[in-house]
């Protein structure tokens, strides 16, 4: 019905990126700057370097370290988070230590990791895991605590075995929060992957860009930066896909609830994108209208990570 403005809006999005790229291309072609090589040179160097000569040498080790460290953090964070979420006493006991370790910037532990594991892959995996575990842990604790106690009481009075309680009640209820934490951790993980490879390393993306800089191979350095940027972008995108799939029930339920309110805004990018998903995070105990509107933004979820928590906190209200 209103296709014309929508196409216009769609094209508008590409205007600025195109202008920026073009601007840089034109400027760098004549600027003859040492630090900012021409776009075409970066492009050709990129093709030479990353298709696919250095992929197994630098990209794969980086990604596998990230996967190992991140996977470790997910396992430890979720397990410990459920345990701490269920027991108030354990939570209080662990609180000071968790708070301290969380506040400790992970890079500060790189020398410690080198001491402990040497310069190999293990120290990098350790740093990544240590830095990414906290958001997952804290979100899991919150997710488990947010579980309605009636559900647990119900499960107990029906004598549901604890394994089933864990798998069918606790985990699903906490999963939106767990995913929110995992998402935060993913970007931290990429950062730590790069940092850990910059110190005492023999390969990896971080190593590559730092070496290129030290060797004054500026176009190579730029291609490394582009690769890291693309990696971050792609992993983020993949994560959203996985999240949408795993939490489909969550979104589905939300979609039904918010159907009437959400349908018209689904396509109108401005309002839908502007959806203040954070409203619920900040005003979970605010008057009903806020929560209700936040709840109505259902289909927008594809781009909004913390919608899960939005949904949960607003569900009791609606």
């Amino acid at each position, binding site marked *: 019905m209103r296709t014309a403005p929508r196409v216009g809006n769609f094209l508008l*999005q590409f205007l600025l990126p195109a202008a920026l790229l073009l601007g840089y291309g034109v400027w760098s072609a004549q600027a003859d700057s040492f630090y900012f090589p021409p776009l075409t040179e970066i492009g050709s160097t990129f093709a030479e370097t990353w298709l696919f000569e250095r992929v197994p040498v630098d990209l794969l080790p980086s990604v596998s370290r990230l996967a190992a460290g991140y996977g470790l953090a997910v396992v430890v964070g979720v397990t410990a988070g459920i345990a701490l979420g269920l027991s108030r006493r354990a939570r209080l006991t662990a609180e000071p230590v968790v708070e301290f370790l969380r506040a400790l*910037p992970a890079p500060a532990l790189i020398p410690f990791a080198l001491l402990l594991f040497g310069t190999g892959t293990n120290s990098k995996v350790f740093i990544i895991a240590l830095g990414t575990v906290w958001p997952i842990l804290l979100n899991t604790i919150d997710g488990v605590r947010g579980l309605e106690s009636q559900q647990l009481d119900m499960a107990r009075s029906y004598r549901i075995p604890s394994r089933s309680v864990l798998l069918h009640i606790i985990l699903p209820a906490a999963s939106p929060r767990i995913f929110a934490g995992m*998402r935060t951790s993913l*970007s931290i993980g990429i*950062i730590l992957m790069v940092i850990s490879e910059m110190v005492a390393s023999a390969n990896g993306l971080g190593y590559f*860009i730092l070496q290129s*800089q030290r060797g004054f191979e500026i176009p190579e350095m730029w291609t490394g930066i582009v690769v890291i940027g693309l990696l971050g972008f792609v992993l983020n995108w993949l994560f959203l896909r996985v999240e949408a799939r795993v939490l489909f029930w969550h979104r589905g339920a939300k979609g039904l609830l918010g159907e009437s309110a959400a349908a018209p805004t689904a396509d109108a990018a401005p309002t839908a994108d502007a959806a203040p998903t954070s409203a619920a995070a*900040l005003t979970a105990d605010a008057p009903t209208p806020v929560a209700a509107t936040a709840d109505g933004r259902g289909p927008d979820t594809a781009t909004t990570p913390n919608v899960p*928590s939005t949904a949960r906190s607003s569900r009791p209200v609606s």
Partner: protein
Amino acid sequence: MRVAEKVTTAPSPQPGTGPVAGRSREGSLRRRALDWVPRLLGIAAILVVLEVCSRTGVLPRESFPPVSEIYGSLLGLVGDPGLWVEIGRTMRGWAVGLLLAAVLAVPLGMLLGASRRAFQMSRLVIEFLRPVPSVALIPLAVLVFGVGQDMKVFLVAFACFWPILFQSIYGVQDVDPVARDTARSYGLPPLARFARIILPSAAPYIATGLRISSAIALILALTAELVVGAPGLGRAIVVSQVSGSITQMYALILATGLLGWLLNTVFIAVERRLLRWHPSHREVAL
């Protein structure tokens, strides 16, 4: 893509804390005092375990000096002006970078939040730049700014820019439309609308953005010192590791952790105080 941080760091409203409201004040105070027993026990337990492990040789003593020695070393360092100089260097990078990011990101975020068209135009650029880890820019920053304080400030500012920008955008976009329209229909001039409607409702978001960024700023400042060797705590840690004074390395790491914890605590306290009127801060959930 947007608000992931908020989930972990939003002040405190957690569902499931409802019953707390009903409890009597006295009882909750006593309970809160009692809560400190397991907390202190937790700290004591971990310290004792580490001490024993190191003294008995379960952990190799040369890489894991006993906790008591680490604390002793830290106490010794506290009396030494050298430590405070390093902390000052780190904190200067932290503060200048954070300030710079805030000065740039808050107005820009408010502008993008207020104008749909501007937001749409810049959306792709922002969405693409945001996941780009700031540390990827370290080599570039070294080339352009050298290895000193400027490089540190640039990295901190770049990394802190995004959370503050996003929070400002959401804050402005999240202004209650009824309040906004009411103000407009009562003929409030734009400046008054900004000061009375937009700024107050965006303030909690911006505060959250600043708090997230403060932690990020510390990480980036330390990274700049550790990896590149800009002067500060991070470099001091590396120096003591390389020179073999492991106890001092641990003491410095401990100091860094305490610094991070202190910053976070101060930020939360200030936020609570300044935004006491806001619903999310009205009731302290525990």
